[in-house]
């Protein structure tokens, strides 16, 4: 496997979506190509850091206010009947 082929398969590899043969070829490549190993490893870390980051959590008080507003507008919406998008 060449480096460019590794890159084509990187997303499928990280998502566990490769067939056994391609996965094995890719891992053989990673075993000797340090650059691709680092790309693969740091891309995985990138995903994990964002997934665990909880960047934009909805605070409880705001959450309650939004839900009240939504449900009260839903109740108003019932009166006039269905609306199109």
């Amino acid at each position, binding site marked *: 496997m060449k*480096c*460019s082929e590794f*890159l084509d398969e*990187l*997303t*499928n*590899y*990280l*998502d*566990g*979506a490769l067939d056994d043969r391609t996965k094995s070829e890719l*891992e053989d490549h*990673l075993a000797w190509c340090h*650059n*691709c190993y*680092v*790309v*693969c*490893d*740091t*891309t*995985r*870390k*990138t*995903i*994990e*850091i*964002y*997934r665990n*980051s909880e*960047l*934009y*959590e*909805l605070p409880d008080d*705001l*959450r309650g206010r*939004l*839900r009240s*507003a*939504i*449900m009260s*507008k*839903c*109740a108003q*919406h*019932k009166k006039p009947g*269905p*609306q*199109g*998008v």
Partner: protein
Amino acid sequence: MSAIQPNVREPVSDELALVRAAKRGDDKAFEELVRRYDRNVFRIAQHITQNREDAEDVVQDAFLKAYGNLAQFQEQSKFYTWLVRIAVNEALMKLRRRRPERMVSLDEDVKTEDDSLPREVADWSPNPEQMYKQAELREILTRTIQGLPAGFRTVFVLRDVEGLSTEETAQALELSIPAVKSRLLRARLQLRERLSRYFQKRASGDGDQ
């Protein structure tokens, strides 16, 4: 090296029952759907709009639109995927209003110049998160993802932060599966490259990086 573990969401087995009850006019059932997905919609909206007030508006508008159009929901996808599609559209509209000078669409920057291998490949320190205080790390992560084009950012957030499958992301964004995969790869690589500036191993000498 192993595959990334998928983000696990709450079971959706009773989602359809809630949707059907809501369609029959049961507002408590709809409120349960709001409770179940409001955090996700808020995160997606804030990632796309990069603005807290806009994200709050998007949460309200998306659920209200979903409520008003429940009868049109054909139940061929998960309710959540349908809701995400509504929320993404609302968020993109907000973004366009804020940035009228730039045409914002999911198709922007699709033709990037960079299909080549990353050129400068620096390994990261063993524990990159420990190099910064929590607040600093959040700032770095926020600034870095905000630098991505909206089309890439949206795909990354749906797939990698929210844990939608490739197929669900394609449905929600009305993109083809190859388009989702291509954008996801580019988003991941661009974020990786930008984060590397912060997380790469310190040079052992006086640092020529």
